[in-house]
């Protein structure tokens, strides 16, 4: 039986909620790098190191403590797990060497696999980004953007294109984007094989 009920906190007049470890165990078992959470000592360095701290509903520290508290819904439907941009500030500073970035990505994958869509936008972008990598072995900025915009539907897509027009022109001007389509890398088929294998191992795919 997975359902382990620990001591009841606040039994002296408190809420008296049972401490449920089943979700923590689910994470340790199924989430890539999930077990590393055990090392967390709740210092809060990750939370304050994150460049997206103002956008996150829960800081990584809070996510870890919610996992330990068995708050499955809150964690898997949180915005935070989809927001990580892999800047690695938290991972570098973590005094317990928790690979925070890997855990956040692991949780995002797991949430999507479980049918949660915490941030449809981010998931859509991830999908198109991944599609590009899979087809070309590299990113074609205008192609990703176009597919992402049109993923919102035709009307909304055109609106988004107009909104981002100046950025596109800027990128062309500074040669961060080509006018002509990008060509696939050499031997892109081998790359696809690798990506397929990774996906089969549960280590890849779009977030």
């Amino acid at each position, binding site marked *: 039986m997975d359902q382990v009920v620990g001591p009841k906190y606040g039994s002296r007049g408190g809420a008296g909620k049972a401490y449920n470890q089943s979700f923590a165990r689910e994470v340790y078992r199924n989430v890539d790098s999930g077990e590393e959470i055990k090392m967390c*000592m*709740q*210092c*809060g*360095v*990750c*939370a*304050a*190191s994150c460049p997206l*701290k103002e956008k996150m509903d829960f*800081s990584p*520290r*809070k996510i870890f403590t919610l996992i330990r508290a068995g708050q499955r819904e809150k964690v898997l439907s949180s915005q935070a797990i989809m927001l990580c941009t892999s800047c690695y500030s938290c991972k*570098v*500073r*973590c*005094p*317990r*060497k928790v690979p925070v970035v890997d855990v956040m990505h692991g949780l995002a994958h797991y949430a999507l696999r479980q049918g949660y869509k915490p941030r449809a936008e981010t998931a859509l972008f991830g999908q198109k980004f991944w599609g590009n990598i899979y087809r070309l072995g590299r990113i074609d900025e205008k192609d990703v953007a176009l597919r992402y915009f049109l993923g919102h539907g035709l009307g909304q897509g055109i609106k988004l294109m107009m909104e981002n027009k100046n950025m596109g022109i800027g990128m062309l001007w500074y040669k961060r984007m080509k006018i002509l389509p990008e060509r696939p890398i050499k031997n892109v088929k081998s790359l696809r094989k690798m990506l397929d294998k990774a996906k089969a191992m549960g280590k890849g795919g779009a977030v």
Partner: protein
Amino acid sequence: MGDKKSILIVGGGMSGLTSAIEAAEVGFDVVIVEKNPYLGGRVAQLYQYFPKLCPPNCGLEINFKRTKSSPRISFYTLAEVEQISGEEGNYQVTIKTKPRFINDQCTGCNKCAEVCPVERSNDFNYGLDKTKAAYLPYAMAFPMQYVIDGSVCHGKACAKCVEVCNYQAIDLEMQPETITLNVGAIVWAAGWNPYDAVKLENYGFGQYANVITNVMMERLCADNGPTQGKILRPSDQKEVEKVAFIQCAGSRDENHLAYCSGICCLASLKQSTYVREKNPNAQAFIYFIDIRAQGKLEDFFVKVKQDEKLSLVKSKIALITEDPATKNLILEGEDTQSGERIRETVDMVVLATGMEPATATVKVPAEVAYDDYGFIVSDQDQKGIYGAGCIKRPADVAGVVQDATGAALRAIQSVVRR
């Protein structure tokens, strides 16, 4: 010099002095080898002890007096052990001394320093001020004898100090010396170094003038320190109104020192009382992961935290930035009790850096067992060379005095056994 019944003590700080005095007072000859030009070690640099908040001078003075009055204690300053050979009961030790350039005729009159044209960074005050190249390490230095810093002195080309010295105490041609000793046992009490705060990149030590370390804070508060005991921040000598202490600065951190130094929480609590005592309007903040005040020291924690102008915040600070206009510091973290983000602006930051054993960098020139962090391990099979004090574990002064007494006993056993 020396004999098989004598004991070598390496390090003349609180541990070394204690071992030396304990062994000498039961009738064994001891030789202290000290790297600095003075005895007393890091205790001499403290302003107050916790939990009693009394000055360390009186305890040190008693130990100096016992050292001076014991015919069985001799010591070398500016000296380091270079080589050890032999075994328990019979060691040959080579000691190298650096020239002091001032002999024991010195009366401490300060005339040499008055005329000396060269300045040097004052290492006793952790570089917070300067002394002349001819200087007295600190007001209560033992031996009470000036010293000339050979690395900056102009030598015979200048020699102004030689002219003014009325006691023929200055000899600019003094040379390094090599001394060989025969001893029966060795106590290694080389002490500790504060963890190098420059390595904590997100805290800006060395980059922002008003980020200092806890050992510097002791000097800043000491009456014989660079500011005569006023807490003036380094950038503009302004009296501080808001001071933040950051705990575990490099401690309990897998990227730096993985262990807890055990004393820094108490030291910061103590230093927060300095801030409050010297300026009743000042505010102090202590940012911590956990406050570790063990045993009876918890009473001190309970007492200090009563102060309404001391805020204890459970958060490891992630980043310090400087406001370039005011040189104030902005701290960012997450209060892990309220869950709220912290953004606090303060006048000065004190990093509570931990203790690294001297043997993390310079090993004993003989076979000795260390743990993963370079502390000497007490090994029952390791006879003849014994660690004492902070070379074995991070500890407070009371702890090292007990440990050094134990080390003295083991050293005595080593010389008596044969």
